[in-house]
């Protein structure tokens, strides 16, 4: 069974530029999560989708971050414009549903903003 796929693996951009990350969840998983992990900290949830609807985006900085999951399968996370403090690893995860089911993570995208 294929795992959660993310791309790119690494990205370096200058501040004020835009960047987009892509995630393809495990087949059949209705719930998709985007997490931000700053060096030395635990992952923090940015947004959670159930199919193509948003369940929780309370910690998403909506002035610069956006995410979509238009067909309820793969998802993109965008940052525009990027700030230095956005340097982090962006992790995508999926689970069968948003209840008591196990979440599986992709390899992450390491973003460096210079």
């Amino acid at each position, binding site marked *: 069974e294929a795992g959660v796929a993310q791309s790119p693996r690494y990205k370096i951009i200058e501040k004020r530029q835009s960047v987009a990350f892509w995630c393809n969840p495990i087949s059949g998983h209705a719930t998709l*999560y985007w*997490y931000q*992990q700053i060096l030395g*900290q*635990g*992952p*923090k*949830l940015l947004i*959670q989708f159930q199919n193509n609807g948003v369940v*929780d985006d309370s910690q998403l900085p909506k002035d610069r971050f956006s995410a979509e999951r238009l067909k309820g399968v793969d998802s993109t996370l965008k940052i525009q414009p990027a700030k230095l403090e956005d340097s982090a*690893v962006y*992790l995508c*995860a999926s689970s069968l549903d*948003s*209840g*008591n*089911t*196990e*979440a*599986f*993570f*992709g*390899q*992450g995208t*390491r973003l460096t903003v210079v």
Partner: protein
Amino acid sequence: GIQVEQSPPDLILQEGANSTLRCNFSDSVNNLQWFHQNPWGQLINLFYIPSGTKQNGRLSATTVATERYSLLYISSSQTTDSGVYFCAVKASYGKLTFGQGTILTVHP
């Protein structure tokens, strides 16, 4: 929201030693997972254990949901066990919340 505390924050062992990592949480949970983050940053699933005890090779985990804690045991540690161990919990249909992690270093 739910609070998750992991201890100890750092742990240094000699190869072959045993260790116990702890995860305390502030509310009832329906989902608890233990992860190992490898040096390349990927989160590897170790256990899905909202309650009870599970074992997988040298690793085992116990969650006592009524007392709001979980323990991860590593026996006969190896250098490849080094990395960061995270506990993550979810209350009902809430979000999966992570602790700050335990950094484990195993020396040969």
